[in-house]
């Protein structure tokens, strides 16, 4: 069963000047996690807003839990949770006030919304901060509370729009932990992110989007193999370069790319740490001392360069600027 289906969605802003979505189609299998990966301005937020019934598409159709988002938005709102890029909470109120308020707005009874607020605060380690106004919370705490607010009715489908953007590494780790827990509970989740690492960590499946369409779709393994997966990068002194190239080639049975000027050898590797150990051992035996050696994971830029032939940011800054109303 598909929990989320989007078909040929288009959406333009400012009378067609800015094309946010240009015929985007995707689906999410029930109980799985799809990460929508793309740079700023690729159309991620527009997609989420359409699926969460906040925007209507110009053309195309979408359904969530089998319900059409344009024809029957009220029914969709009964089964979804949404947590946006910015913590959408009343800052002057306490965490407790916010959660009980949203509980009441989901039409829980007074006692049920209190009970639910308690459960959620406990679950997101916010019990101690419950009676403090949100404006005293850290960025990570706000995001957790925002996520808690989107889980009040135990939604069938959850949308998270860039859940970790702007968080420090610790906040990000905490958020990942929380999302992992959720996913174990079997929720269908569509999240957007700019970080390949995040998509890799959280999602079963990744859809890469650029200029409002899906340009690649698959598991992170599939995508990485498309991009070339991890690479071993080795820098040696110039008089060792040719010897090192021969050594790497024989060790890994792959032709490395060589940058003569930078004295850098790059080679795609599959079992990366084993390959690293092997190459290091051979270099040591040959008395070649590497100036630098590293395993590089493909970044969003690498994905973009290999899928579209252009760097992510460049394409995007322009569109993002235009997209601001």
């Amino acid at each position, binding site marked *: 069963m598909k929990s989320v289906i989007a078909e040929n969605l288009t959406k333009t802003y400012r009378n067609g000047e800015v094309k946010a979505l240009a015929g985007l189609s995707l689906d999410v299998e029930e109980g799985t996690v799809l990460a929508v990966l793309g740079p700023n301005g690729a159309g991620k*937020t527009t997609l989420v*807003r359409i699926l*969460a*019934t*906040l*925007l209507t598409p110009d053309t195309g159709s979408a359904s969530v839990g089998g319900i059409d988002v344009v024809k029957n938005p*009220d029914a969709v*709102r*009964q089964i*979804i949770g*949404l947590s*946006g*890029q*910015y*913590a*959408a*909470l*009343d*800052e*002057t*109120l*306490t965490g407790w*006030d916010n959660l009980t*308020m*949203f509980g*009441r*707005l*989901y*039409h829980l009874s007074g006692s049920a919304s209190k009970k639910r607020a308690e459960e959620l605060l406990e679950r997101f380690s916010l019990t101690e901060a419950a009676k403090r*106004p949100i404006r005293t919370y850290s960025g990570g705490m706000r995001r957790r509370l925002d996520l808690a*607010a989107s889980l009040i009715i135990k939604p069938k489908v959850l949308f998270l729009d860039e859940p970790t953007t702007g968080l420090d590494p610790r906040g990000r780790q905490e958020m990942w932990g929380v999302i992992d827990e959720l996913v174990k509970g079997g929720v269908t989740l569509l999240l957007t992110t700019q970080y390949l690492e995040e998509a890799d960590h959280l999602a079963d499946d990744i859809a890469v989007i650029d200029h409002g369409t899906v340009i690649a779709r698959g598991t992170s393994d599939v995508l990485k193999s498309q991009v070339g997966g991890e690479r071993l990068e080795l820098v040696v002194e110039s008089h060792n370069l040719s010897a090192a190239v021969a050594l790497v080639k024989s060790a890994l049975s792959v032709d490395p790319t060589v940058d003569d000027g930078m004295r850098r050898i790059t080679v795609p590797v599959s079992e990366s740490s084993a390959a690293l150990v092997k190459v290091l051992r051979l270099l040591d035996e040959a008395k070649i001392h590497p100036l630098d050696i590293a395993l590089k994971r493909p970044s969003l830029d690498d994905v973009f360069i290999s899928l579209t032939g252009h760097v992510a940011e460049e394409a995007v800054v322009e569109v993002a600027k235009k997209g*601001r*109303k």
Partner: protein
Amino acid sequence: MIQTIGDCLVITKRQLLQLIRVPEVIIFATIQPAMFVLLFRYVFGGAISSGVQGGYVQLLMPGIFVQTVAFTLAGTAVGLAEDMQKGLIDRFRSLPIARSAVVIGRTIGDSTQNIVTLVVMALVGFAVGWRPSSGFFKVFLAFLFLLAFGFSMSWIGVLIGLSVREARVAQNLVFISVFPLTFLSNAFAPTTGMPRVLQYFAEWNPVSTMVAACRQLFGTPNHFGATANSWPSQNPLWMSLLYMALIVGIFLPLSVRKYKNASSK
């Protein structure tokens, strides 16, 4: 329907909770008009001849009550613009609640805050010599009238707040529009001294009809208003009710429509 009323009340409760969590807001919202009462009473009170028994303060209090509730619009506009900016409106819109609940709850909440402000101002007024002479029932009616006017002005605030999307812009816009409206009226001084065009404006200004209506209900002759025998100055109560109905009739549907299409980015 009952559910929608419930949703409105949750939003109203939110507004009132804010007052408890951040009491500074209501304290300052009350100090300002109380200060105005004292300033006008003692600065202009001596300069403007009121011609009514009990002096200038009898004419001033209705004026300053109306000015204060007219500014309900500011609280609504700024509050909603902030909610837009912070994405809170998006969250509300993703909830299974009636489209009108958020804005209706908001206007009720903002109007309710006026109760506190009006009580404090009335006490300050009483302390400096204000004595309504019409009896409890009519005074009570006047305050209901003021609360109703605050509620209707709040609907203009909804449209402004949802349209400008920036709290500071909303603030400025409200001040440059509402301040002249409250001063180009019979609220603080006789309109007879104004240029002819402004006199007409003041005559028809809803603030003037409200002030005249309140003076009538408080049992004070409206010495600052009657520059012409126009219908509004003769029938301030009916004219004010008509204005309120017009304002709500125009701005409520516009605001709900705006809210339906509102989206923070």
